[in-house]
């Protein structure tokens, strides 16, 4: 199981490092003994206590009796009906989140592929600079960036006025408070998660293979689909996952750029916890979201034939 392939380290510019395959027999030089365990222990313990155990807490919370409250405490009654209830109440934001996430991922793939391809094959000596430029805007606060989009897409702003002039939008048409703004925001905010793994994959491709394709009379389009695209699939798979998963769970874009009609599931979970104090419902909805994502990821990874990614 190699796990690094999927996640290109954001701050490192040389994302080209291939990950070490972990299940092959240990290469020479791997030391046996107690030190390895001692080095691992603190980090793994932290993850066990604050990542694994909380999942059990969440699962337990989702089965509490809804009659309790966070101050009086909850009774554990294995109240599976919580799941049915939240599905009935919130299937719309749930589906909407998956749909927006899928759309944003598709747009990110198109934009990100162009950018990653340009950096990997066309940038020449500017390769590193362009990579740095991909990352740089995203060190500015997520919320400040999103608010900036709110301004750009504002009702009498330049973008809306231009689109009205071109009759793409009606005279009282707007972008804010529409699904367009939300999906655009998601696409923008998660783009680097697509570009970096795509670049890592594309950069590893041996240019001679592409040359060979054109020597054998493949035109550039055929060459791309027969050679470049298949070889970049690991990057496509990890990039789409890294974009899809956070964008489905995100609610900042929906809240700042959308209206209540674009409410996403993250926002529902958040307010069930903090405003409604309905912990069992919030827990159940969280578990459902996680289960859907895990199921989709497993099916997707299997169909893409890149199981080694997980």
């Amino acid at each position, binding site marked *: 199981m190699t796990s690094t392939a999927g996640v290109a380290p954001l701050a490192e510019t040389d994302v080209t490092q291939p990950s070490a395959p972990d299940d092959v027999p240990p290469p020479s030089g791997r030391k046996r003994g107690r030190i390895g365990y001692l080095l691992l222990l603190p980090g793994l313990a932290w993850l066990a206590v604050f990542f694994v155990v909380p999942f059990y807490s969440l699962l337990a919370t989702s089965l509490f009796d809804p009659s309790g409250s966070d101050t009086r405490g909850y009774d554990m009654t294995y109240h599976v009906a919580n799941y049915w209830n939240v599905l009935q109440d919130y299937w719309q934001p749930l589906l909407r989140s998956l749909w927006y996430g899928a759309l944003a991922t598709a747009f990110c793939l198109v934009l990100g592929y162009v*950018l990653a391809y340009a950096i990997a094959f066309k940038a020449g000596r500017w390769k590193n600079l362009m990579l740095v430029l991909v990352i740089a805007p995203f060190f500015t606060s997520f919320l400040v960036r999103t608010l900036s989009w709110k301004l750009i897409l504002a009702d009498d702003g330049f973008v809306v006025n231009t689109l009205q002039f071109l009759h793409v939008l009606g005279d009282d048409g707007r972008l804010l408070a529409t699904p367009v703004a939300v999906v655009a925001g998601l696409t923008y905010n998660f783009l680097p998660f697509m570009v970096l793994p795509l670049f890592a994959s594309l950069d590893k491709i041996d240019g001679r293979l592409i040359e060979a394709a054109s020597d054998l009379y493949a035109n550039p389009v055929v060459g791309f689909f027969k050679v470049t695209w298949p070889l970049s699939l690991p990057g496509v798979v990890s990039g789409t996952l890294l974009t899809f998963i956070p964008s489905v769970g995100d609610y900042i874009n929906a809240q700042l750029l959308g209206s209540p009609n674009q409410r996403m599931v993250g926002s529902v979970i958040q307010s069930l916890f903090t405003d409604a104090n309905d912990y069992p419902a919030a827990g159940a909805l969280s578990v459902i979201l996680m289960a859907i994502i895990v199921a989709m990821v497993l099916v997707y990874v299997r169909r893409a034939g890149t199981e080694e990614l997980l």
Partner: protein
Amino acid sequence: MAWLRRNLVLILGIAVLVYTFVPIFVVVLMSFNDPASRLIYSFDGFTLHNWLNLCEDPSMCSALGRSVQIGLLSTVVSTILGTMAAFALVRHDFRGRSATNLLIFLPMAAPEIVLGSSLLALFVGAGFAGQLGFWTILIAHIMFCLSFVVVTVRARLAGLDDTLEQAAMDLYATPQQTFWRVTFPLVFPGILGAALLSFSLSFDDFIVTNLNAGQTTTFPMYVWGVAQRGVPMQVNVVGTIMFLISVVIVVGGEVVSRRRSRALA
């Protein structure tokens, strides 16, 4: 025409890059804005007021300070723990490698809202509902930074050629000397990158933080709060400063590594 066809992909790529900078441009511009009203948000006039009076709203600066504090603390802890784990993964042999890798991978793959609500369920279940605040935020941030540190340092370590270390050993360096004089300096850029990444992940986090913050406010939470009722222009100053700092660090790192590779070559 031929030129255009040859460079089409590059031009499109640069166009995408320009697009990613559009909001940054607006943030920088707005940091010099003299708004007519807090609710109508357009560029009305140039002023240095926002830069000179950064803490006009004291609650913004206290939130900012808290975010920096949490960011630094979670960076230190997660970088140390994550680097140790990365060394173990690359250099040591142990049982349960697959399970360990999965445990490290999963926090990066889970949506933040699920991470945040699980932690909240844990804290409330353990009776800490009243103590949500600085420490629970810190615990959460260390948790989600850890995996990114492990992955970043591991990539650096795995790509390392061990001939230099062997040379050191051949020249009678003790294992400690080899580690501190050869291995560590070679891995250091990876560790530094991981630390920067942790800080920015922590500083920027909203969703996990918001669930586990209780009454405490971090900078993103402050921005979220004011987004509904008019954003003070100083928020854009902070955004601009963050952008400048990151550019200096990233470009500086690039220059240093370029110089170093030239010196080696």
